[in-house]
Structure formats: C-alpha cells, structure tokens
C-alpha cells in the first residue's frame, strides 16, 4: 500500500520533470507552426488583398475555396503535381529497389557507394535543378550532344521550350536527387530480414526469383509503403526544383500547386485566396502524412518505449 503510493509519487514527479523538459520545444512548435497554420485557415475564409488595403478583410466564408475550384490555372497545377508525383515516385521506387538489392549484396567499396549516393541528396535542391537545367539548356547542351551522338535524337531538341519535353529534365533531376534516399530506406528494410529465411528457401530449392517474390517483397512491404508515402508527400510539396529548373514554364505548363500558391501570395499579394490554396495543399499532404503516421503507429505507442 505504502509502496505503491510512493511509486505513484515518483511517477508524478517523473511526469512533472518530463513536461518541464518538453515545454520549451513544444511551445516553440506551437508558436512557429501550429499558430501560423490556424492563421492561414483564418486568412483563407477572408478576403485579403495586400494591393487593395482599403477593402479591409471581410469574411467571405468558403468563397476562396469555390474560386479555387473554378480556377483553371489551379486545376492545371493540381494535374501537373499529380503527374509529377506519380511519374517520379514510380521511377524512384523501381530504381531504388534495384539499387537497394544491389547494395545489400556487394560489400567491397560499399562506403564509396554510400557516399556517392548521399551527395545528391545532401546538396541544395536549387543547385541540383540548376545542374540539370544547364545540361538540358540550349541546342548544344551536353544532353543534346550525348543523345545525338548516341543516335537517340536526330537533331538537338529544345527541351525547356517545349511544354511536354520540359518535364524530362524536371523528372530526371528529381529521380537523380531522391532515389538514393529511397534506396537507403529500402536497404534498411532489407537488412532487417532474417538471413535464415533465405537459407531455408535455398535448401528447399527455391529459385532466386521465388525467394524475391515470396520472402523479400512481402517482408520489405512496410519499408516500401513508408518510402512511397514519404516521397509522394514530398512530390506534392515540390517547389524549389521546378522554380529553379523551369520556373513553371514554358508558360505555366510545368507549374505545380506550391509554385502557383507562392505566386498568388507573393507576386499577386492575394493573401486570402493564396491561403485557401495553401490549406488545400496542406490537406492533401497531411492526409498522406496521417497515413504514414498511422502506419508507424504501432511502433509509436507500443513496443520500444
């Protein structure tokens, strides 16, 4: 009786220490992230145009959202983002899986490979965008030179001036930059698979393909799902890459939602409408994030504490 009282006293004391330690970081996050988000929502249901301050900030309800629905440029931007997300994430997962399988086997020189893989991930996205833009720039960029020399192209192509062709450097740059990250996530998953499973399969005479199909893929599925959600979320937020590579052009043919929203906010200074677009981006990405967190949920609440 007395022992358990003391126990709960210690627990209460521990909880008090814990909250004291948590508080500074928690307050920071509330102040710089949650409060602004609520503010964005407030802006999104008001008319607020910095170019026309005399209008004030009248409440307009869902008008900004309705405007978004009928805004052709926004709908196109949504389409571009979806196209970009699906294409780049699919490529990254396929190539990433291939690389992870290779990295999981070859041991000598692995440090070098891991470094080579990490560098594109670590450099500023803007810089990677500029590197790829330079390679695809003009008639005599290196991409044209190589492709013509290999006979893939008859003559130099104007990549950045053509509305569809402009996607090629954009997607290549994204795949180049983020496939390593996907490969590392999948590699971590591969290394968690018990080697004795393959041992047993080999004894039973299972082919390499069957081992891959029936051991690797099912056991790797959690890592694949995590990488998939993670990358899709990133692709939906994509801003830097396209800003520096095509600027959303030619015209607005590669403009993603984050870039359009940025233009509405800081070029047109339409803060009410821009905030509504921000909230839409938020809802889409956050839906994916919740999926991801739910997926990790078991490990968050139970298991290792």
């Amino acid at each position, binding site marked *: 009786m007395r022992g358990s009282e003391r126990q709960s006293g210690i627990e209460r004391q*521990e*909880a008090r220490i814990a909250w004291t*330690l948590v508080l*500074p*970081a*928690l307050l920071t*996050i509330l102040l*710089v*992230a949650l409060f602004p*988000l609520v*503010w*964005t929502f407030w*802006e999104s249901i008001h008319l607020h145009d910095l170019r026309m301050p005399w209008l004030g900030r009248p409440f307009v309800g869902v008008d900004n959202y309705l405007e978004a629905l009928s805004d052709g440029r926004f709908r196109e931007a949504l389409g571009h983002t979806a196209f970009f997300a699906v294409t780049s994430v699919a490529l990254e997962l396929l190539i990433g899986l*291939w*690389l992870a*399988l*290779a990295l999981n086997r070859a041991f000598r020189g692995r*440090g*070098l*490979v891991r*470094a*080579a*893989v*990490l*560098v594109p991930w*670590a*450099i*500023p*996205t803007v810089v*990677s*965008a*500029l*590197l*790829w833009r*330079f*390679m695809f*720039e003009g008639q*005599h960029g290196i991409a044209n*030179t190589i492709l013509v020399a290999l006979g893939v192209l008859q003559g130099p192509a104007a990549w950045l001036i053509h509305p569809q062709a402009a996607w090629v450097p954009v997607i290549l740059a994204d795949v*180049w930059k983020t496939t*390593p990250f996907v490969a590392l*996530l999948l590699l971590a*998953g591969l290394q968690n698979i018990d080697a004795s499973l393959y041992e047993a399969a080999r004894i039973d005479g299972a082919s390499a393909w069957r081992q891959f199909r029936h051991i690797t893929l099912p056991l790797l599925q959690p*890592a694949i799902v995590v990488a998939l959600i993670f990358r899709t979320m990133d692709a939906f*937020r994509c*801003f830097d890459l396209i*800003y520096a590579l095509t600027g959303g052009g030619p015209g607005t043919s590669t403009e993603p939602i*984050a870039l359009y929203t*940025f233009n509405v*906010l800081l070029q047109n200074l339409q803060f009410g409408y821009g*905030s509504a677009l*921000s*909230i839409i*981006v938020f809802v889409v*990405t*956050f839906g994916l994030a*919740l999926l*991801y*967190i739910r997926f990790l949920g078991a490990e*968050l609440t139970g298991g290792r504490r």
Partner: protein
Amino acid sequence: MSARRWWPFLALALLVGASAFPFYWAIVASLTPEARLFQDPSLFPTHIVTDHYRALFTERNFWLPVRNSLIVAGTTTAFCVSIGALCAYALARLEFRGKAALLGFVLAVGMFPQISVVSPLYLLLRELGLINTFPGLVLPYLTFAMPLTVWLLVGFFRQLPAELEEAAMVDGAGRLRAFWEVIVPLAVPGIATTAILTFVYSWNEFLFALSFTLGPERQTVPVAVALFRGQYQVPWGQILAAAVVATAPVTLLVLAFQRRIVQGLTAGAVKG
C-alpha cells in the same frame, strides 16, 4: 562470371557514375571560358580558367550569401539542438501520459508543407519588422528544424541502454543530473549527427528564404544562386561556380559523416 554475380556491380557502377556525372560536368563547366560553354562541349576540359570563381567573389560578392547562410543555419541548429535535446530526452526515456500523442504531434508538424504557413509568417514578420533580417529567417526555420531535431534525437536517445540512468540514480543523482552527466556524453555522436542533418536542411532551405528576404544583403546561398541573372544572358559559368561553392560544405560534411548520417536518416524514417 554468371549474370547473378556481376549485375550488382554493374548497378553500383551505374549508380556512382550517374550520381557523380552532373557534379563532374558542373566543375568542368565552371572552369571553362563562357564563350566555349555551349560550343561542342567535350567531356574533358581543354582550356581551364578560374575567371568564374574570381568574378563570383569579387563582382558578385558571393561571400555575403555564404556568411548569411552560415549565420542562419548555425543559429537554427544551435537553438534546435539545445532545446530539442531536452524534449527528446523526456520523450525517449521518461514515462508520462500523453507521450505517444506528443511524439505523433511532433512527427506530424515535421511534415507540414512549408507553403501552408508562408502567408501568416509573412504577415507576422512584416508586423514585427523582421522581413529581411536574420531573426526573420531563423524563426520560420524552426517550423521544420525543431520537429526534425526532436525526432532524430528521440531515435538516438532510445538506442542507449535503459540501465544507464537507473545506475546513476541509484548512486544518488537526480533525473536531470543523470541526463546531463550520463546520457549527454554518451549521446554525443547522435547529437552531432542530428546537428549535421539540421544544419544541412537549414543550409538548403529555399522557400522561406525566398519569401522573407528582399535583397542580396540577407539572401542565403540557395536564393542567391537561383536568382543569378546577367545583364543580357544567363551567366552559366558563374552560376556553376556558385553551385560548386554552395555544394562544397554539405558535401564535405556528408562524406565525413556518411555512416552516421545514413543511420540517423533511416532510423528517423523507418523505425519509431
């Protein structure tokens, strides 16, 4: 050799080649005279000149964005790691109600799309007179850096054996002393890795830096590089020289600490 034995090496050679080529090409181009950049590019440099680098630091004063980036990323990292370590310690090693919810909250905030808070942060910073200042960048950077730091540190603190503080506390040390004298020294590698990753993310950040600065005096490296314009044409030689300079510090950090960084990245994303 059978196909099964060589394909991993082929894959890896391709990978290393593909990863390295754009860098190689940028370095070659940054040493090539402007007039030759788009005339029959050859894979190996023929005329090496350092004009672009000289112009970058004299005409463009590229030290300014480098300095700005160091200040902003450095301050953000220092603040986040010191405050974040306390929070992460509690989340990783103390028992209290609401812990799982807090962890979920931190993770969720770390995934906020930046664009969703640009409008209020802009209005707020304008109100406070902080547009185009260092605090006006550090403050927004905390939105993504703080959750990232806490999340990574929780992962590292969890890896330490549970008996550590217990032993210290049996010896009469309180919770906080146990944290300071036992856990922190042992977690130094993890804390350093977290600091590196937070620094790299802050160094690379673009959207906030673009939105909340007005001119070159406070622009960070990514913004300065992205907004490079010549009078008549795109000054590719200088842009690529700037790209090389912007890439160098993070590349060195990554190469020096690659093993730890991989650990931190995959632990943060895959495990709880």
